[in-house]
């Protein structure tokens, strides 16, 4: 079974909620994850941000739903780190 350990997203978002509120909303839905948000460009009504989420087993769909729910959209998945874990051997 594979787990997503790290993901870097290129996201277009409205100015509100701001970076802190946005990151907190993502962290709320990704238990024990670390979220880093970097503003890349700022326009009149929008800003492009790079969001890096690190955790032991990230739920991409949950992250996507939070981002979409806040009115933002994911432009691209720029980096991903996935780790496979050994399946326990079947007994007998």
């Amino acid at each position, binding site marked *: 079974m594979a787990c997503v350990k790290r993901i870097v997203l290129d996201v277009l978002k409205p100015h509100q909620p701001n970076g802190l509120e946005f990151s907190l909303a993502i962290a709320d839905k990704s238990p024990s994850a670390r979220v880093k948000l970097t503003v890349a460009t700022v326009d009149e*009504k*929008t800003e492009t941000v790079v969001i890096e989420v690190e955790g032991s087993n990230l739920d991409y769909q949950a992250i996507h739903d939070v981002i*979409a729910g806040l*009115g933002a959209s994911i432009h691209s998945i720029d980096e991903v780190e996935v780790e496979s874990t050994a399946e326990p051997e079947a007994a007998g």
Partner: protein
Amino acid sequence: MLRQLRALLQITHTQLIARRYFIVNGFDGALTMQGLIVGFEVSAPVDLSVVITACVGAAVALGVSGMTSAWLSEAAEKQNELRALERAMVADLGASAYGRAAHVLPVVIALVNGAAPLMISLLIITPLWLGQAGMTLLLPPLPAALVTALALIFLLGIYLGRISGTFWLWSGIRTLLIAVATAALILLIR
């Protein structure tokens, strides 16, 4: 539900709009009641029930007017903001917090805008009801209602002072002076 509503208010900064509406329309309600009471006080004496009916009628009208006008204008504004943001984002935001805000927040603002003058007016009318019910007040019902109106206007002034960070007493006195000037104007044009 409340947490979601608070988040929507935060995202769209609607709490500031709601606060502004509360003060503007609350002040509107208080001054209207004060005007009615001053008018009745200096007119030929009428039965207290007539005064109460007129004041309640005005209070309900202020509430309905505040609610509907705010809902119509805010719904249009929020839809306009949503369309502008959708153009900038090149995306349909109907299912996002912004989409929900465009539907929910005009209702919240309308409730605040309608409730503020209605509640303040009903508080001002309370001494009239108490007087009609036969309760003994420190003042006759009409002056008691007038004092209540002035006290509420003073409190609204204090609240404004707290928001603006100015000296609360000066802010309260300023709104009180506006109320006194309004009463003087009514007496002048009578």
